[in-house]
């Protein structure tokens, strides 16, 4: 109620100010901006849940949206290496907030060799699969937003405190729910879940892609099948944006359940915001375990 009153007051106090325009590279950051800034900012989301955020082209619509942005909020860690620098060059450089710079990254490669596939020098960029990451990211992003609009700093602080409290509570709930997932062996299609695996204690026993970003061939799949028969997992995980062929192939041969996780906001019917994203993720994982 207090937040609401503050908000109402603030909405009344600065009615004429033009809304901040935020360019979010991925839907999860757009959702986080909405949590931290409410409806007052205009958020443009460059990619959708059904797109691989790596394979995006610097389309004219993206350049135009970048032109008007006050802040660019992206994962970083080279996830957008193919198109973000190009957009920033075409539309004039903008302040960029990199979420990946706020959390410790896993899988930092010991060597950088493209023979190992599309490796990211900074580490695995799929940080949005661990909800604990959203706490430091939200704190830093809220500070950044407040820097852009110093006259609304108090409101940003209040909104952030509210979000952090709700998130903490949700985290406790999720961790309770997810207890049965601890130690469950899984196969993943793409190395896209190391953070979620660490959070939930899932054990990755095989990867369908031979190297990151490389489609699995028949020979590699046969090898995975053999590996899986030796060390039987319980689930096969893939992100909603990925083609299901390889996972279905393995599922048919092993009788394992394939879980298509929303991966980001909008990745499933239920995943409409950050909270429902993790609600839905856990619901799907737990349902597949039964």
């Amino acid at each position: 109620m207090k937040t609401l009153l503050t908000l109402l007051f603030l909405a009344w106090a600065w009615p004429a100010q033009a809304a901040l325009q935020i360019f979010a590279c991925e839907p999860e950051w757009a959702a986080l901006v909405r949590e931290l800034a409410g409806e007052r900012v205009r958020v443009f989301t460059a990619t959708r849940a059904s797109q691989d955020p790596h394979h995006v082209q610097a389309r004219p619509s993206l350049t135009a949206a970048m032109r008007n942005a006050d802040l660019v909020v992206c994962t970083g860690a080279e996830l957008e290496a193919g198109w973000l620098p190009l957009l920033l060059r075409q539309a004039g450089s903008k302040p960029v907030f990199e979420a990946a710079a706020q959390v410790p990254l896993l899988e930092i490669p010991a060597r950088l060799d493209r023979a190992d596939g599309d490796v990211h020098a900074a580490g695995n960029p799929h940080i949005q699969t661990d909800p604990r990451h959203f706490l430091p990211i939200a704190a830093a992003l809220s500070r950044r937003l407040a820097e852009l609009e110093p006259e609304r700093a108090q409101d940003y602080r209040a909104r952030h405190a509210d979000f952090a409290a709700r998130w903490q509570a949700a985290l406790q709930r999720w961790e309770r729910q997810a207890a049965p997932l601890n130690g469950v062996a899984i196969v993943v299609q793409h190395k896209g879940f190391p953070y979620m695996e660490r959070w939930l204690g899932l054990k990755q026993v095989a990867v369908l892609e031979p190297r990151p970003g490389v489609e699995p061939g028949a020979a590699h799949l046969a090898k995975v099948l053999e590996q899986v028969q030796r060390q039987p997992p319980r689930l096969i995980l893939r992100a909603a944006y990925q083609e299901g062929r390889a996972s279905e192939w393995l599922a048919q041969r092993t009788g394992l359940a394939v879980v298509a996780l929303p991966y980001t906001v909008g990745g499933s019917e239920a995943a409409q915001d950050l909270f429902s994203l993790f609600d839905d993720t856990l619901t799907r994982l737990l349902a597949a375990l039964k």
Partner: protein
Amino acid sequence: MPRFAPLALALAASLPLPAFAVSEADLQTLRAELAQLKSAYETRLKDLESRLARAEERPAPASNAATPARTLNPEIALVLSGVYTNLTQNPANYRITGFAPGGEIGPGNRGFNLSESELGLAANIDERFRGSLTFALAPDNTVSTEEAYLQTTAMPHGLSLKAGRFLSGIGYLNEHHAHTWDFVDAPLAYQAFLGGQFGDDGVQLKWLAPTEQFLELGLEMGRGRNFPGTNQDKNGLGSGALSLHTGSDLGRDQSWRGGVSWLASSPRGRTWEENNLAGAAVNNRFTGQSRLWLADFIWKWQPEGRRTSLKVQGEYLHRRESGSLTYDTAGAASSDVYRTVQSGGYLQGVYQFLPAWRIGLRQDWLDTGTISLGSNAANLAAPAFRPAKTSLMLDWNPSEFSRIRLQYAQDQSRQGLTDNQLFLQYQMSLGAHPAHAY
């Protein structure tokens, strides 16, 4: 460790000496204390280890800008390219009937060839400028500077300025480096009107409108050192260009960009070799004005969640040249009026039917239009002919960084001759992550 080791040692050393004087209970206490010390020490060590592990996980302090250049400064990009060419006509006498040649035209040499390799270096210079240099390494062991420019990065109001040597922003294909093209060679219209691709030394100002619809205006001024201009020594401009592009998304899966451009140049003494009506090779020279209009359009369909796509693109070029032509500069050297109005274009479609495979078809056409030669018409031909070319390509892209392409083309640029062309080409990209340009 250093804090606890001496203490533990001292304790251990003091144990046997007073042992006979202490009771069993004292000994028990001492043992318990020692165990406690040991466990405290282990906890500390574990804590240190975990802190170290966390520190190792943490990335290096990230810069503000989301560039891929975390480890390389400047970014280095190398493109390796080679081609096997099989032609049924001799490329030595390649020409496009009715079009005065300039720049790089033709299918290149027969047999195994190195195509143009490229070495590019780029980096932000400071908070205001970015610099980029691209060397083109030609198969004949010559190195040329394809691009060398600085670009502003922090101009307000959607403005950006480029200065130096760069590929002009006219049309669609011109700005793209050859290794990103969908076919081995440039369309016939680009060869006839731009000598393959137009780059110049000069400045370019671009303005991106603050609208939801992409709208970009470009203005270029240069010395006009390349075809259709000529290198000349003067204080003024040798070439100028204007371009206007717009584009947007159509629903979830489609997007487009289109535009019009204009390139003006004033060649002084542009020379070329041509056969006269008697069949003898003569050199001609042209001085005058060249005005080129381009219209370009590209439409892409990229359904989400699938790595297949379709793109259709086309460009139309229309050129008007007027001035004076000197016929046979080494012999007769007769000068008279020269006026041409010529046009051409291409239309192509590329379908990515599997994540790694694409197939493409391109149709090229040219129209010799009207050619007025004045009194030189007595020696030079002014053919009415429509050169055409059909190309079919198939390429395999095992990763974002490699491509192997097979292309077959039926080239009817020479009146009365059909050249069946077969190319097998590789294009490899090393170093900095290639940009996913639209």
